[in-house]
């Protein structure tokens, strides 16, 4: 095989048993260091999406994403099947294993090569969209709301359309008619004039002899038959009867169980372990000191967990042992003060200083958010089996391919000798994108010749997280006589991803958005919608303050600042209308509004809150969301509902605090979750604007905290500038 220098291609070939396989491969435009590390050979190519056509006419979509509740298997298959004119009843999916054949292997090793020309669909790859596909798919990351908008749009649809065109071409040749005389539907091909029809599979052999198209024609919205429909999810029936297999359910012969304990102060290492009490406990097989953590292996998990609680571990001092939450916030404020005027620039347009000088007045406010844990329902776990030259890992992972490579590197084995078996994730939310826990399972399993299932207790899961960062954000706005903003100055701590999270949708001529970093030992992790969680709250609360300063309501004020964008005003109007904005609400109730554009989807929410009880109760959330086009509307709505509850839980109760360097909270009694009696009614309106497709998993989360905070202000006159909101109000009563 020659060197691939092209950015993408479509390839096809026959697998055993006359199965036609069509793949879409994307090569990164340039070698990002992260990607280069994943590839060991110049000839390697990122091959991302596959469709298989079996001899019984079954079509299988091979999906390179992890299922963690977002319905990804279904929406991906839906996009492929529609372009292929497939019979939905005979469409199946497989999750692509973390294996070269599905990620970064030279196509030709397993497949007969087809088109040698650069296909038309990658001509626009310089726009960056396809680079994102390569990054997300080559690494098999499920996160960043990428599945539909990148894998689906750039991979699944193209694979389906290409497969269909090849079958049409093969049928035309076999039946000796022109392709234009053929039509396809429900996995059959028809030559109506000749009265002929046959299943796709009849042409698999012939199709494989032809070059794949370089630019398959994609359907326009009017021709969609499956896209845009609320098809039931593949994964749901098994989740109602106990048969769905999550990582924690993996069962292997001779398997033993491990409980683990990490340092109370992140970064500390073991100095000594007194195992006098634990050693002789029933079922205990081995007590293992790995330096960065301790493990107890036993016949059963409960025995292991009981024993590990009896260990007396002395941990090294890291210097963070005296640090409390207030110290961390103080460090952030110091970083901000030191950076003022010389912080790292995010956005700089116009001249903020000049605007402040000519302003009628300058309005300022400071906001904070706390650390947050992910608290997926399934505590972290991984099962590892280390045998001669071979490592097998079973776990629910958001990034299985990267984990496979990390295992290979860490334990000095070839990647081809590492098999990662990805199973269902009992929640991800970003936590399962971090590779710490699978590596720990392998470290433990190295000491045995049988498999080890490592399960984290809820306490470990809470205290050894990679946290949504706490941060501080300061705003300064120059206002004109009417209270409209002449400038927007925002200085904050903790900048991660996505880079545009701190940007504002509003038209303000002078903007300075900048940030500073405060060093602390609490590790950062991506948390549903990442930086948008804090910036959504900061920006949308401060805009509400400005509205109040102008004597306008939050909806009218925003609308005035969004006149330049019909997409934004349409979404904002829809949410306001659904909530009947402007109506009188009873004493003790209030309405709040917020709008956030994240991951390509614009979302506005209106919250009605009732503050007459012992804690604020969100009565109803009206949400309007424009993802461009919702591929599976009910699935999209479910994701938005989920994002709202996830964000609302954090806004009301979420608070990870640091005391003497350690995380204080440990389980659901002190890190509470929203429950059914506290959950609002949620109404979601989808706006299919036709804009570029946006994500679904994350965009529901960012607007809910500010919409609630603004509703609390409307109800009480108290401006909420920190979270959790339940604490803010409790402090007042």
């Amino acid at each position, binding site marked *: 095989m020659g060197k691939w220098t092209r950015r993408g291609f479509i390839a096809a070939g026959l697998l055993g048993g006359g199965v036609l396989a069509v793949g879409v491969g994307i090569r990164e435009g340039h070698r990002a260091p992260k990607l280069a590390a994943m590839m060991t050979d110049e000839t390697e190519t990122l091959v991302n999406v596959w469709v298989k056509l079996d001899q019984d006419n079954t079509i299988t979509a091979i999906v390179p994403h992890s299922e963690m509740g977002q319905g990804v298997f279904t929406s991906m298959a839906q996009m492929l099947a529609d372009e292929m004119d497939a019979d939905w009843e005979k469409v199946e999916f497989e999750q692509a294993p973390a294996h070269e054949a599905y990620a970064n292997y030279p196509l030709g090793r397993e497949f007969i090569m087809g088109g040698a020309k650069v296909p038309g669909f990658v001509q626009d790859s310089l726009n960056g969209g396809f680079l994102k596909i390569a990054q997300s798919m080559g690494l098999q990351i499920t996160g960043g709301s990428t599945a539909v908008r990148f894998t689906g749009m750039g991979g699944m649809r193209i694979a389906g359309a290409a497969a269909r065109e090849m079958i049409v071409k093969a049928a035309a040749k076999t039946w000796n008619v022109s392709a234009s005389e053929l039509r396809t539907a429900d996995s059959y091909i028809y030559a109506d004039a000749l009265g002929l029809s046959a299943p796709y599979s009849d042409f698999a052999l012939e199709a494989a002899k032809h070059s794949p198209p370089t630019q398959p024609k994609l359907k326009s919205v009017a021709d969609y038959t499956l896209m845009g429909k609320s098809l039931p999810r593949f994964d749901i029936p098994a*989740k*109602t009867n106990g048969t769905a297999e999550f990582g924690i359910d993996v069962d292997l012969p001779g398997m033993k169980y491990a409980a683990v304990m990490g340092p109370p102060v992140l970064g500390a290492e073991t100095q000594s372990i007194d195992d006098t009490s634990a050693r002789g406990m029933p079922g205990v097989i081995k007590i293992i000191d790995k330096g960065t953590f301790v493990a107890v292996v036993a016949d059963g998990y*409960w025995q292991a967990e009981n024993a590990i609680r009896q260990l007396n571990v002395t941990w090294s001092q890291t210097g963070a042992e005296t640090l409390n939450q207030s110290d961390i916030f103080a460090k952030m404020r110091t970083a901000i003060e030191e950076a003022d005027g010389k912080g790292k620039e995010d956005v700089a347009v116009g001249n903020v200083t000049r605007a402040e000088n000519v302003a009628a007045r300058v309005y300022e406010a400071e906001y904070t958010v706390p650390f947050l844990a992910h608290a*997926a329902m*399934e505590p972290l776990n991984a099962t590892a089996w280390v045998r001669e030259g071979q490592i097998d890992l079973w776990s629910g992972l958001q990034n299985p391919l990267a984990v496979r490579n990390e295992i290979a590197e860490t334990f000095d084995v070839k990647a081809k000798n590492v098999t990662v078996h990805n199973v*269902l994730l009992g929640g991800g939310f970003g936590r399962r994108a971090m590779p710490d826990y699978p590596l720990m399972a392998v470290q433990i399993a190295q000491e045995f010749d049988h498999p080890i299932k490592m399960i984290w207790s809820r306490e470990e899961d809470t205290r050894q997280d990679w946290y949504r960062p706490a941060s501080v954000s300061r705003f300064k706005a120059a206002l004109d006589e009417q209270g409209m903003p002449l400038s927007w100055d925002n200085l904050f701590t903790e900048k991660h991803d996505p880079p545009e999270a701190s940007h504002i949708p509003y038209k303000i001529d002078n903007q300075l958005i900048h940030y500073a970093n405060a060093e602390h030992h609490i590790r950062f992790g991506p948390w549903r919608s990442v930086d948008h969680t804090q910036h959504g709250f900061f920006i949308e609360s401060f805009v509400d303050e400005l509205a109040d300063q102008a004597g306008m309501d939050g909806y009218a004020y925003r609308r005035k600042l969004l006149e330049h964008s019909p997409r934004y005003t349409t979404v904002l109007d829809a949410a306001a209308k659904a909530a009947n904005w402007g109506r009188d609400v009873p004493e003790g109730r209030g309405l709040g509004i917020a709008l956030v554009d994240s991951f390509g989807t614009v979302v506005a929410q209106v919250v009605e809150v009732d503050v007459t009880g012992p804690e604020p109760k969100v009565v109803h959330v009206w949400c309007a969301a424009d993802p461009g086009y919702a591929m599976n509307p009910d699935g999209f709505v*479910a994701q938005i509902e989920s994002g709202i509850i996830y964000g609302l*839980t954090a806004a009301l109760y979420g608070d990870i605090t640091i005391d003497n360097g350690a995380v204080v909270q440990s389980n659901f009694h002190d890190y509470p979750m929203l429950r*059914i009696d506290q959950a609002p009614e949620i109404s979601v309106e989808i706006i299919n604007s036709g804009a570029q497709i946006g994500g679904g998993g994350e965009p529901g989360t960012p607007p809910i905290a500010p919409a609630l905070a603004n509703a609390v202000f409307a109800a009480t006159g108290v401006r909420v500038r920190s979270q959790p909101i339940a604490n803010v109000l409790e402090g007042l009563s």
Partner: protein
Amino acid sequence: MAEVRFRVNGAETVVDTDPNTPLLWILREQLKLTGTKFGCGIAACGACTVHLDGTPIRSCSTPAFVAEGTDVTTIEGVSAEDGTQHKVQAAWIEHQVPQCGYCQSGQIMSAVALLRDNPNPTDADIDAAMRGNICRCGAYGRIRAAIKTAASA
């Protein structure tokens, strides 16, 4: 170690165990009934909910000896013997309730018990019966709707 005898989904069962072992781990590790989930270990999330003589209990915090002589029903025993779905399961599919699905065995066990005792629950009844079950994917609205559908089935 001691023998603990009970019926699981109708089958006579004897396990040799430390009688203090929580029922959850007996079900999952010894009986391989992994539909019942571990969530918190302190009876605070409901993922481990099973029925003990028909009453929903948190198996993570129920020692095995408590189950001695009882009828234990797990998610695997909710469907009819011929495999027909329970009306709660059917309603769960109709409303596309589960997302990640991890909490759903416990949710369904709580809902099945609720509807058996109270065929037409009010919203307040649903709140009271279901507030012990956390769903981090936030499917609460769909859970409520599915319970109402099952109630009218």
